[in-house]
């Protein structure tokens, strides 16, 4: 493959991934509002378009045409830099997410993953937690006590749960004997088992950490509306305000759900019967059925997150960190111990 073709393929991948993620991210706001409305027995947005289908566009226009306000004695550079520092790392995670099996297009074998580096999963966690700087800087730069308290809480939560999520992910890594996201999925297909069946403890710990890192209920203490009036975003207005929830609640949830799918739910593989094989109702789609399965799994995880968000109350900040260090971390370490005994028994 010539270097020009390689460059073009990479450029196409980047454009497709960014377009899909930011586009879907915007439309997930509508999904969230609809799901929340039906959980609370009301119709939700109904006016703009059929069943509110154009609502995200209307919201976008409203946010973009609003006046851009800079709080007095806020730091102009950091105030704006914080938005970039929140958005970029969250979307960088998708660089190591494999969306499907290798496909054959226009005479090229293309892996639907931007960069199949051999340490992909570490990159995902590193980028995922880089987002903390956006939050911390926004809290400091807006020169407001609410924002600062929110940012400090968020930083505390991320520091605690970053440790937990990494130790939880070590289980599947030990079973797959690889740090590459692509190879982890291939290992699950070869061993004919989704790692959720072998790693139930670490799966639960991972889901908890996912909720905590993305600031979803029950871990949304950093933007608690009742006491902190949305925390670190309180001094932002217009689209700048709109970007923070977009990044935190949608892009990050999507990226961590994708990583969770890769680690525990077999990535693009169809329904699994442990140690027997895979059942694929979409067999007629050929290699493209993998993409459908990946989308289905991420959708289910996203709906699970929404379901928890709109039904549970929130924890106190000390309860959150206590759970992280005294319950989740020991559980994850215990899981690693068990996995060390299971891993040699698996073939492959």
């Amino acid at each position, binding site marked *: 493959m010539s270097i020009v073709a390689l460059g073009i393929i990479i450029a196409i991948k980047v454009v497709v991934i960014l377009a899909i993620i930011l586009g879907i991210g915007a439309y997930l706001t509508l999904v969230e509002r609809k799901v929340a409305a039906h959980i609370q027995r009301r119709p939700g947005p109904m006016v703009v378009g059929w069943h509110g289908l154009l609502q995200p566009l209307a919201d976008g226009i409203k946010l973009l045409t609003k006046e851009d306000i800079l709080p007095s004695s806020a730091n102009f550079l*950091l105030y704006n830099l914080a938005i970039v520092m929140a958005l970029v790392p969250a979307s960088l995670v998708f660089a190591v997410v494999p969306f499907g099996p290798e496909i054959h297009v226009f005479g090229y074998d293309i892996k639907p993953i931007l960069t199949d*580096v*051999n*340490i992909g999963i*570490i*990159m995902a*966690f*590193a*980028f995922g*937690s*880089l987002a*903390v*700087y956006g939050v*911390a*800087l926004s*809290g*400091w730069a807006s020169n407001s006590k609410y924002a*600062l308290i929110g*940012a*400090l809480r968020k*930083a*505390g939560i*991320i*520091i605690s749960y*970053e440790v937990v999520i*990494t130790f939880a992910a070590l289980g599947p890594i030990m079973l797959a004997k690889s*740090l590459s996201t692509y190879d982890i999925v291939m290992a699950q297909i070869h061993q004919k088992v989704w790692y959720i069946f072998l790693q139930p403890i670490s799966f639960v710990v991972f889901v908890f950490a996912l909720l905590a890192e993305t600031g979803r209920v029950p871990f949304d203490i950093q933007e608690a509306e009742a006491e902190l009036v949305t925390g670190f975003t309180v001094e932002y207005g217009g689209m700048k305000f709109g970007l923070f929830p977009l990044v935190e609640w949608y892009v990050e949830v999507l990226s961590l759900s994708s990583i969770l799918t890769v680690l525990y739910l077999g990535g693009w593989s169809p329904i699994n019967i442990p140690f027997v094989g895979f059942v694929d109702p979409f067999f007629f789609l050929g290699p493209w059925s993998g993409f459908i399965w990946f989308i289905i799994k991420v959708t289910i995880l996203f709906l699970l997150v929404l379901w928890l968000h709109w039904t549970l109350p929130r924890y106190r900040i000390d309860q959150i960190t206590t759970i992280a260090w005294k319950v989740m971390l020991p559980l994850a370490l215990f899981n690693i111990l068990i996995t060390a005994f299971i891993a040699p028994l698996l073939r492959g």
Partner: protein
Amino acid sequence: MLSQIAFYLFGSISIICGLGVVSASNPIYVVLWLLGALIAISGIFFSAGAELLGALQLMVYVVAIAVFYILIITAVPWRKLHKNEQHNRLIGVAVLPFVAILYVEAFIVALSGVSLSKNKIIETITKNYGNASTIGIKLFSTYFWAFELMSVLLLISMIGAILLGRKEEKTYD
């Protein structure tokens, strides 16, 4: 060719950011420059083909360690912390000769062509087993003693930190 361009790019970024660290007066800018330097250094690791080291640099230094600086600096009354008002500039000047000696040493080592593995042992292992396994093999064979010593040191410092940070009713009876 491409990797050389990447190396010079990340190298110059890290030098510029390093200059920013020592010259900026606002502590929060200092941390941001430091962040840039650390990310550029991880880029150097990547361009040299040491992906695992680069990723660990990102995860450990950029995320885990630098975030504590941000956390502390945002929480203190930073207007009192401007470097100009501090009087420890003398120390900075005083350590300059020692830093210079370190650089001269690094230069001599680079010129004399001392390498980590003369017979390209590490290169062969990397080719056969990949990045993570190479570091694992090296860490648990050649450098095992140093590795264990470091672990014990970290354990001790952790216990010390917990002891210092523990809040307890003081009873002097």
